[in-house]
Every structure is written in structure tokens, then in C-alpha cells.
């Protein structure tokens, strides 16, 4: 990378817990220090913490770069630094080219103004000139699909309409560097498709994109390289598929037995637990092993596993009872290990495994562990959705027949 579009070099950012200032006595020295001292060379005061520590990365021109990590890892802080809303406590940050952010796309709207007025207002806030907005106005309105309501104050819009108008404006800014934060979940299914198409269009036009999302499927589809953040530190940078794998592996925890519980699920692992494999092909065989520990005797047990997709939609579940094992019993100090073997007839995507310990008859849960494990199904572009119904094309031929003349009833 000879000439990166944006680069972060040893960036630190600190925040403060609690109220900013409790008293004037605290404020005035702090204020004077700020006025006198140049930014940088700062240390951590009590109640302060590092939101980002020593973050370094470059993004090349025209590259799509993903940032993933758990909530609170510092993803949004990076975006706020990149967009200039905040400045780093220490370190250097460079962005080359006109930048725009697809973050909080409706922030510039004023409820009392009409859709038309807000398109101008928001467009200019997001960095377009008045002439730019005028030129793209029709395209923006068409994209939002709100032609009918364009002269209605946006306070009368539904939240979906509001968000659609916001995205429509933001998607037409045409920057050189675009920052995207979890905005593809706007509006209904059709609008989301439209947004994704627009994103792909923007990507293919050579814009540099920094994309932050929890939607790992979208990250792997859009970004070539990604970065994994954990508690403000960069853990991994590399090809998206590997970083996602790293993320999913790190995310898998084992639970220790809580002392006040009589019975508990202590481990959920995928396939053979020594290989921390998290990416599987469609139709692969996956083994899910659930381990249960009992401190006190329990009877009439059943172990349930469920798989949900990234939007928590239940894809599948099964349990020992339905698979023919009778009521299970555990004595004090005994443990149980069940292995379920599944064939992954799933489409590409991210899936989470939930495990439950139910009472055999009443379905009362003794314990449950949501998202105990996460895995990734990759590389089946022939289908979309969650299920892989193994489609094959058995016929695809043309027929021609004389057009029938239909007599229409005359009224």
C-alpha cells in the first residue's frame, strides 16, 4: 500500500466514567490545563479508561475494510475519530479525500421541515453543496420511495419512512471515503435489498469504505480485509474470513460451575473440541457436544439444542427426548455428556447454538445457555436464506405456442 486512503498510527482515546465534572474545583484546573497544554502526552487519571489503545491500521484507496468486535470494543469510537467528531487523545490519524459517514443518517433532520426541505438540509450537513443536492434530488426521492409525502413535515412520517429518507440522502453523497456503521438494517425487506445493492454499487465505484457491523455475513461479503477489536485493542488484522474465524473462536467461553446451582450446563463444543473449527461447508457434518454437571440429584432431564441465525430466528431445535433417549437422571456429583450429530443443510451465514436443560415432561428449564457457540457456514452462492434445500435445475427450456385469443367480456 503506497498511498493509503486513511491511516491510524498509534491512536489512543480515553474516556471518563461518570459525570464529566463534579465541581468547579475540579473543572477550573482541568480547563486551564486544556487551554495551556497541547493535546497528547496525557496519562490516565482516576475514573478514566482507555477506549482505544495503540490502534494502528491502514486502508488502501478503493479498499473495503471491516471492523468487528463485541459491544464496547471501541468500534464506534474509531468511526467517531475517523469522521472528526472526536479527536484522539494520542496518536495520529489521517484521512485523504472527501469523507462521508453513513452513521446516524437521520441526525440532521428537523421534524418541522418537509421531506423536501430536509433532503437539502441533511444533504448539505452531510457534505454536499446545494448544487449537488439539487442535481441528485430526484434520484434521492426515487430511492426513498417517498414521492407522495415529500412535501409533508417529517414529524408526520413513520419511523421507517424517516430512516429511509435518511439513508436515501446519505447514500447519494458520493464521497471518496465512506464510513458505514450498522445502517443496513433500515426499513423493510425490499428497502434493505435496495440498500445492499446501493452499497455494492458504491463499493464497485472505487470508494474506500470502512464498514462496522455485527452482521458477520455482510462483513465477509463486502470487505476483503477486516480488523478485530477487543476492549480497545487490535487483536487481529487480515483477510475477513480469517478475522471472523478468530472472532468466533475467541467468543467461545466455557462456564465454570456456579456454586448456588444444583445442575448446570458446563460446556458446549462443536465437533472435536481440540480443533477450534468454526467455519463449515454446507452439508458438512457437525457434532455438538453438551456437558452437564450435577451437584445435587436430578431426575427427568432432557438436553435441548437449538440453532438460531444471526437475527435470532429459530432455524432448528432438537432434544434427547425427541431423539429417543428416555428421561435422564443424574446423581450428586455425576456429569453427563451428549453429542448430537447434525448435517448442516444450511445456507451461507452465521449461526448460534443455544443449549437448554429441560425437565422431561413439563419443559421447565433448569438451565439455558444462549449463543453458547457460534459457527459460520461459508461458500454456497447458489442459495440465499437459511435453509439449503439442495436445489438442482432439472428443466429450463423454452416453449412457443400460438397465442390464444381470449374474448373479453364487454361491459
Amino acid at each position, binding site marked *: 500500500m503506497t498511498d493509503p486512503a486513511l491511516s491510524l498510527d498509534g491512536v489512543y482515546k480515553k474516556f471518563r466514567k461518570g459525570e464529566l465534572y463534579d465541581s468547579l474545583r475540579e473543572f477550573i484546573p482541568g480547563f486551564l490545563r486544556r*487551554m495551556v497544554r497541547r493535546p497528547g502526552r496525557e496519562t490516565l487519571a482516576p475514573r478514566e479508561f482507555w477506549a482505544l489503545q495503540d490502534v494502528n491500521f491502514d486502508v488502501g484507496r478503493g479498499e473495503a475494510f471491516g471492523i468487528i468486535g463485541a459491544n464496547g470494543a471501541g468500534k464506534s469510537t474509531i468511526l467517531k475519530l475517523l*469522521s472528526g467528531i472526536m479527536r484522539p487523545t494520542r496518536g495520529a490519524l489521517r484521512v485523504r479525500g472527501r469523507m462521508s459517514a453513513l452513521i446516524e443518517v437521520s441526525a440532521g433532520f*428537523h421534524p*418541522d421541515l418537509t421531506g423536501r426541505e430536509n433532503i437539502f438540509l441533511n444533504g448539505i450537513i452531510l457534505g454536499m453543496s446545494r448544487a449537488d443536492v439539487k442535481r441528485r434530488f430526484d434520484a434521492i426521492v426515487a430511492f426513498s420511495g417517498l414521492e407522495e409525502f415529500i412535501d409533508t413535515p417529517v414529524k408526520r412520517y413513520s419511523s421507517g419512512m424517516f430512516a429511509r429518507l435518511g439513508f436515501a440522502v446519505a447514500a447519494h453523497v458520493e464521497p471518496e471515503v465512506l464510513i458505514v456503521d450498522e445502517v443496513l438494517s433500515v426499513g423493510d425487506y425490499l428497502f434493505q435489498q435496495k440498500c445492499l445493492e446501493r452499497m455494492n454499487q458504491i463499493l464497485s465505484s472505487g470508494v474506500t469504505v470502512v464498514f462496522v457491523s455485527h452482521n458477520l455475513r455482510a462483513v465477509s461479503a463486502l470487505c476483503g480485509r477486516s480488523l478485530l477489536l477487543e476492549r480497545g485493542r487490535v487483536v487481529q488484522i487480515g483477510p475477513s474470513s480469517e478475522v471472523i474465524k478468530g472472532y468466533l473462536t475467541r467468543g467461545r467461553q466455557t462456564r465454570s460451575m456456579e456454586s448456588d446451582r444444583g445442575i448446570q450446563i458446563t460446556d458446549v463444543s462443536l465437533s472435536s473440541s481440540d480443533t477450534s473449527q468454526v467455519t463449515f461447508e454446507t452439508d458438512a457434518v457437525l457434532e455438538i457436544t453438551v456437558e452437564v454437571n450435577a451437584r445435587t440429584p436430578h431426575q427427568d432431564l432432557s438436553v435441548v439444542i437449538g440453532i438460531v441465525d444471526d437475527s435470532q430466528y429459530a432455524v432448528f431445535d432438537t432434544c434427547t427426548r425427541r431423539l429417543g433417549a428416555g428421561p435422564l437422571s443424574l446423581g450428586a456429583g455425576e456429569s453427563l455428556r451428549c453429542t448430537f450429530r447434525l448435517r448442516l443443510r444450511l445456507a451461507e451465514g452465521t449461526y448460534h447454538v443455544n443449549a437448554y436443560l429441560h425437565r422431561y415432561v413439563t419443559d421447565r428449564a433448569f438451565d439455558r445457555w444462549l449463543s453458547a457457540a457460534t459457527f459460520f457456514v461459508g461458500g454456497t452462492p447458489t442459495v440465499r436464506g437459511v435453509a439449503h434445500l439442495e436445489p438442482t435445475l432439472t428443466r429450463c427450456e423454452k416453449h412457443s405456442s400460438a397465442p390464444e385469443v381470449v374474448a373479453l367480456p364487454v361491459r
Partner: protein
Amino acid sequence: MRASIGELLARRDLLYTITWREIKVKYKQSVMGMLWALLMPIVIVLAGVVIRYGFSLLGGTRLNAADVASVSVRAVPWAFCVSSIRFATSSLVANANLVTKIYMPREIFPIAAILSQFVDFLVAAVVLAVLLAVMNVGMSVQLVWVPVLVLILVLLTTGLGILLSAASLFFRDVKYLVEVVLTFAIFFTPVFYDVQMFGSWAPVLMLNPVAPLMEGFTAVVVAHTPPPLLWLSYSAAFALGTFLVASFVFERLEPYFAESV
């Protein structure tokens, strides 16, 4: 500071748009619309006429047209001064949503607040000009001072506005403090009275940087004499100083805005 002025110029479309939004939103869903721009000056003039009438009763003189004209000529810029400082002070907090979410030069908010008040000022000034013509106040070459006086006033309010907007972002107390000061400032500023009424104490009143401007407006518009030049240069220096200090402080504090709102 040169960089931020450059940035401000580059985003002047944004400045116009935010100003336009302030004006538009202020009069949206109101029946009187732009007539509201006249209300505050009218009320100030009425109050001034009452006070002036009281003075004339005490002094045993008659209330003359020049007094009414003098009060009106001061009321319009005073109304601008008060409402732009009030409006600018709350501008950053009112736009916290944008400050924390989208990057733009933040000076735009207090400046747009003042510009939108300036539009009101212009509307009121046009009406005032017509009234003065009807009252037969007359014209003279001294009127060329009016833009200078207005410029100093705008510079002063802009300086105070950007300083107070940043301060109130960190401390909400500032807003209430400003409110109290603005409510009673009219007693410390020669709007209803002339500083000469105080005799040898007049220079003390003139230390208020707005006072020379108020005296100046009466002088050049009603009395057709030059403004008090020495005091006027004091005002100008004060305004420029305030503006420079305010810009410096604002620029220094700006990086902390988003995390301090």
C-alpha cells in the same frame, strides 16, 4: 484560526442552510410569521416611550418626537443584541444531536443563530426606516456610520455568542446566567436614557461596550452628528478582542464538545 475560517468558507452552503433552517423553523406553524420579528422592538419602544414620558414629567419638559425616534433607533439594535446572544448561547446544546453525530465546523451553530436574528434585525430596520421617514427625522451624511456601528455590534455579539455557546455546553448554568444578565442589561445600557443624563458618571456607563454604539445610533440617525469617536474605537477594540479570544477558546475546546455535551 486561519484554518477554521477556511473551513467555514468551504462549508458556507452549510452556514446558509442552518441559518435558513433556524428562520424557517422559528416561524413554522405560527400565524404571524415574520411579523414576530417586529414584536420585540415594538415592545421595547413602547416601554421606552413610557419611561421617557416619566422623565419628561419629572423634568417638566414635553416628550418630543426626537426622544421617541431616539428610543426606537436604539431599540432595534438592542433587540438584535439581546436575542442573538440568547439564541447563540443555547445553539450548541440545542444542536447536540448534530454535534455528537456528524462532523462539521461547530462555529456554524452560534454564527447561524446570530445570522438568523440578523435577518429579523433587517426586517425591523426596514420598518424603522419607514417610520423615521414618516416622523420626518431627516437624512444626513452621518448615516454612513450606520453600517460601521452595525458591524461592531455584530462582531461583539458574535464573539460573545460563540464564547457563551461553548461555555454552556460544559455548564448549563451559563444559560441561566445569560438569561438573568440579559433581562437586566437594559438598565445598564443607554437604551431608554442618554448617558449625558448621568453627568460626570457618563464615562462609567460608556464602559459598557454596547453603550457607545447606542449613543452612536442616536447621534448619526436622529441628531445628525458624528458618533463619539473615541468611545466608538473603544467599542470596536473591545468587540475585536472578544471575538479573537472567543475564537481561540472555542477552537481549543471544540475537540471535547462531542464527549462533553
